[in-house]
């Protein structure tokens, strides 16, 4: 079976500005795939390239194995859910949902039947005759989804569809969206800058930064096995320490830093003498009063202790002035502000990545 969506060396430029650079990607049928990245990194641009509103400056987009060059958005087997939904205010809910069928020339009775089923599917049975303006935020969301599903797309594209919703509703809609995807079984490509959304909903995530896809993998991979410093810093909290590699040995390496020699995993195969960054998650840091026997450690002064019940966030300052956060589980002994501590972590919790040229 052909891949749902394939991007091959896709570049999109606006004048001199490169919005998407060398995107290569294969999205499988039935996958819930997310693009995660900060604002302005080119997510919407990439989505609009897939849906056909933007022609890539270079490269190819294939949907279901078919090259999409020269095929307009109205002839692609995709459906897009817009950031602002873009429901048609002059049509009723049912007309909105049936619009895609209407322009395809589906006969009225057939159309009505289908719209009715979709209304049931998104739990809006009672609301078919209403105007869009009479609906709540969540209902509008569901109309948009039903409208897109009505045309039976191979791929559903969603551009931050939950960003306008109330927090409470947003969390609810996450589950609902995932459930809908499971039920209809088509590919969802989902855009968000909220990592919580991406991590909870997706089968796989592509993390984007400044037009570049930095890493693709499932939630665990991008969280636990980041391959670039950007991904390590963007997905979840992370502490980073600069240094130079001094020694490399079976998957691990030692980093020479202003805080002393620190040891961590070396998944990207850095060599001795290379500039590198060491990442340690706050929850991987252990607080002690003396040097750690196994693993690396350094001294730090406690600045602030924020107790949150199940966890406690401790902010510390190391010799260089840099701030470090540590997260302690419930039941840990809490340090007092001003206390000098020794921070340590196991080498498999330290992650060494190549330092970018200008960081």
């Amino acid at each position, binding site marked *: 079976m052909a891949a749902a969506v394939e991007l091959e060396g896709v570049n999109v430029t606006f004048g001199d500005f490169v919005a998407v650079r060398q995107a290569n990607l294969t999205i499988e049928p039935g996958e819930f795939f997310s693009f995660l990245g900060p604002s302005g990194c080119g997510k919407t641009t990439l989505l609009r390239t897939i*849906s056909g*509103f933007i022609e890539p400056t270079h490269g190819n987009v294939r949907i279901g194995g078919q090259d999409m060059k020269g095929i*307009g*958005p*109205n*002839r692609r087997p*995709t*459906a*897009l859910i*817009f*950031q*602002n939904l*873009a*429901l*048609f205010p*002059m049509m009723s809910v049912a007309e909105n949902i049936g*619009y*895609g069928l209407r*322009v*395809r020339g589906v006969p009225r009775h057939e159309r009505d039947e289908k719209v009715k089923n979709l209304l049931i599917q998104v739990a809006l049975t009672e609301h078919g005759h*209403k*105007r869009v*303006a*009479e*609906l*709540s*935020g*969540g*209902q509008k969301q569901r109309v948009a989804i039903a*409208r*897109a599903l*009505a*045309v039976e797309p191979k791929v559903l594209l969603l551009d931050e569809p939950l960003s306008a919703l*109330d*927090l*409470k*509703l947003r*969390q*609810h809609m996450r589950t609902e969206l995932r459930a809908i995807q499971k039920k209809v079984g088509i590919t969802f490509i989902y855009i968000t800058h909220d990592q919580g959304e991406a991590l909870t909903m997706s089968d796989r995530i592509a993390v984007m930064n400044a037009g570049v896809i930095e890493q693709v993998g499932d939630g665990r991979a991008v969280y636990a096995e980041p391959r670039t410093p950007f991904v390590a810093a963007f997905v979840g909290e992370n502490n980073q320490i600069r240094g130079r590699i001094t020694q490399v040995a079976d998957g691990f390496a030692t980093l020479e830093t202003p805080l002393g020699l620190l040891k961590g995993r070396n998944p990207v195969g850095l060599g001795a003498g290379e500039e590198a960054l060491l990442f340690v998650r706050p929850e991987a840091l252990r607080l002690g009063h003396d040097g750690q026997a196994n693993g690396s450690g350094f001294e730090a002064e406690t600045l602030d202790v924020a107790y949150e019940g199940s966890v406690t966030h401790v902010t510390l300052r190391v010799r260089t002035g840099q701030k470090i956060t540590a997260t302690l589980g419930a039941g840990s002994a809490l340090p007092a502000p001003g206390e000098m501590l020794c921070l340590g972590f196991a080498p498999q919790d330290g992650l060494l990545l190549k330092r970018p040229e200008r960081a």
Partner: protein
Amino acid sequence: MTVSPFQRILFALYIAIFFIYLLGPLAVMGASAFNTPEYPQVWPFEGFTLDWFGKLFADQDMMYGLKMSLWIGLLVVCISVPIGLAGAIVMTQITPRARSLYYLVVVSPVLTPGIIIGISTVVFWRQFTGQTGTRFLYDGVILTVFGQASFISAYCMLIILARLQRFDRAQEEAALDLGASYPQVFFHILLPFLKPALFSAAVLAFLSSFENYNTTTFSILAEKTLTTVLAGRMRQGTTPAISALAVIIVAVTVLGAIVYEILKRRADAAAVQRQRAAQAAEEEELAGMPSPAPA
């Protein structure tokens, strides 16, 4: 700021004088339509009569002019609204550099005296039809429609443009994405969105055409419209039948304004209703939901 009673009275007086100035002449003229003397006068009021309305409707020239005015008004609507629509759409799509020049060209008729538009229309079409052997186009009605369309299309464009600038492009893209063709997007999405503006533009176009004199008097050639017949009457001397015409026009305007007001209130009420429904739905939705897990 405290307003002294003196200032208050002064301001009330000003408003009163303003509206006496604005409406007084029309009222006096209107009253003369119901007075019996041959010459339009209000005082002394010699006797109430509706004869002048009868005389007005019996006036062949006037009725012919009215018919032509209505006809021309209709044609102008049919030409100016589509042109104004096209003009507005092009305005939103044209490259920034060309836009200011284009704007200057299409808006210039609004700031050009009507007689000049009439003159230039006649001069051009006389030559053009002469040279291309299309003399049948050199006709008062056609020329008047073209002449009036120059500035009325600009009015229409400005009205439509104001609404078009609030159009959400995503609507268009959503329709395309659902498989609509370009003409379908135009007819299903853009036109319905612009409908209120198109309607306003049509009404304005018709009324502007109907009341136009300056352009028409040049471009009408051998034909007649209500305003040119009226102007002719002015030269010959005046009768209260003309006042009667004014009374009818004012009455129709007032009626139109009232109908418009009623329709608008109804639409406003419906919009408020909808908003309330949405709010209620929102509350219901949030009420039925568990609180979010603490982050």
